[in-house]
């Protein structure tokens, strides 16, 4: 009943790989196959991320249309200089990541390490600025929850804000804006933190020279993740910071 593919012969079944590279996993036939599988897998993972953030983007869309006035005023509490800088910082970080991928592809170890460090640095700056923003919200009682305070929005002129006063019922709804703001940017920041953690690991491996011999999949796939996180921010910035910013 036995045939060629059925039962193990006594000889060792494994040594038919012709001089496989060390990073080639046993169940792939070629490195090409492994690389493409990795990229595809990463993209599928990013699909789930799209839907993950998608849920929040939908909530945002809904409430922005329902409570537009509240969203305008609350959005105007965010700082464009900080948000804009952060956008630039994140784009820069992404740029260095892209260069990192290139450096790995052309097998330049030194450049790769440099670019990874820069990616981390700009990522950290982003988080730093984010922290400053969060802190300010905290001081102003703009963090949703028990300490949330709407008095500024009901009575902006008394607080030196150049905004239309909101009727109290609408002012209440600013809390929804800030809920979404914290949920969305918080999730984004969480992704950044995880990303930076992974970057340190990649950095260590890069220094060891793991990625300077043509094996670039981890760098490439991490790059995809990092760019995806950038893209989320590219939407968050105009949606959260730039509602109705023109003088009325």
């Amino acid at each position, binding site marked *: 009943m036995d045939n060629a593919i059925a039962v193990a012969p006594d000889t060792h079944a494994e040594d038919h790989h012709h001089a496989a590279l060390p990073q080639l996993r046993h169940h792939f036939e070629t490195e090409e196959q492994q690389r493409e599988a990795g990229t595809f897998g990463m993209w599928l993972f990013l699909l789930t991320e799209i839907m993950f953030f998608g849920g929040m983007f939908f909530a945002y869309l809904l409430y922005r249309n329902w409570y537009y*006035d509240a969203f305008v005023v609350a959005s105007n509490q965010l700082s464009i200089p900080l948000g804009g800088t952060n956008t630039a910082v994140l784009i820069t970080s992404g740029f260095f990541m892209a260069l990192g991928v290139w450096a790995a592809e052309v097998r330049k170890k030194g450049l790769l390490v440099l670019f990874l460090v820069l990616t981390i640095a700009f990522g950290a700056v982003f988080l730093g600025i984010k922290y400053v923003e969060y802190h300010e919200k905290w001081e102003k009682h703009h963090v949703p929850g028990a300490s949330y305070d709407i008095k500024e929005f009901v009575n902006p002129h008394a607080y030196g804000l150049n905004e239309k006063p909101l009727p*109290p019922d609408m002012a209440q709804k600013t809390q929804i804006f800030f809920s979404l703001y914290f949920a969305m940017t918080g999730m984004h920041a969480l992704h950044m933190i995880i990303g930076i953690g992974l970057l340190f690991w990649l950095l260590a491996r890069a220094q060891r020279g793991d990625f300077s011999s043509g094996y670039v999949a981890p760098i490439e796939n991490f790059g995809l993740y990092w760019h995806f996180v950038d893209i989320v921010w590219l939407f968050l910035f105009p949606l959260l910071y730039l509602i109705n910013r023109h003088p009325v």
Partner: protein
Amino acid sequence: MHISPVLWQFLMKWLTNSALFPREASTIAPYADALYFFLLLITVVGLALVGTLVFGFALRYRKDRNPVATQVEGSTLLEATWTIIPLALFLIVFVWGALLYFRIYNPPPNAMNIYVVGKQWMWKAEHPGGQHEINALHVPTGQPIQLTMISQDVFHSFSIPDFRVKREVIPGRYSTVWFEATTPGTYHIFCTQYCGTNHSAMIGEVTVLTPEDYKKWTEGSTSGMSLAQNGERLFASMGCNACHSGNAAARGPNLAGVYGSKLRLANGSEVLVNEAYLRDAILNPSQHVTAGYAPIMPTYQGQISEEGLIDLVEYLKSLKTNYRVQQTLTTSESNNQAAPATPEVVKP
């Protein structure tokens, strides 16, 4: 043959108590049942068909009789058949179901309105004449009844199986359902949306009365104040009349006759004023500012109970002229007493 007494009891109980179908006690019920029987029919036919095919083929072509299988690739004609026939049947079901849905959820214009407030874990019914009931509802036969329902806390769902009607009772927003009872008797009210610990105790009874009995019941159980009258008192005591006095100089619009009218809003859109709109106008005034007015009306969110809102809404609905408003204004300004009960206030 000897049957154990327990089993016997059970059998008797079932035969006498448990029908296979609930009673048809509303005008909707026969319509719902008709669709149900149609669906049952296609299910039974479909199941019989599948059963015949499966067992027919399995027995006819069992290995004993047909030791060697003949390979068949498939058949586009057959595929088309069993795509199109079920699809057609399902589409019929869809259209039929949709017609039934609109029949159940579109009340006739002459329906009598009763308010229902759901909260963990009881139903409160408020009749326009001021009768309050808890976990009970009295309705006459032969009269379409519309229920305007709202929840004070979580989702509930108001269901009367014998009438085949049911609707979710939602926090923060009115939902409606209507029925016309046909047979006097008592029927179950269930809360069918899971609402916490005592969900299964949130039940009650509808009592369907003949119109004469219903009249007797309304008279016998009135509390003396109609909803509109309660609303009038609230209107004065909450100071609504300070702005909605009906004077030309008043800061708020004249509310007489506003119910049922079309309002033009400051943002240019036009809305029909119904119960839901009135309620929302009191809780979230700034979200629909009437054209020509400043958004100065304060919100009453958290200050009025759902029952209070119902009273106010009923009052505003009954408000045909401004005469009463101005009267309450003077009384409430001179002494903070309740407005005198006026029995002639319109009952719908």
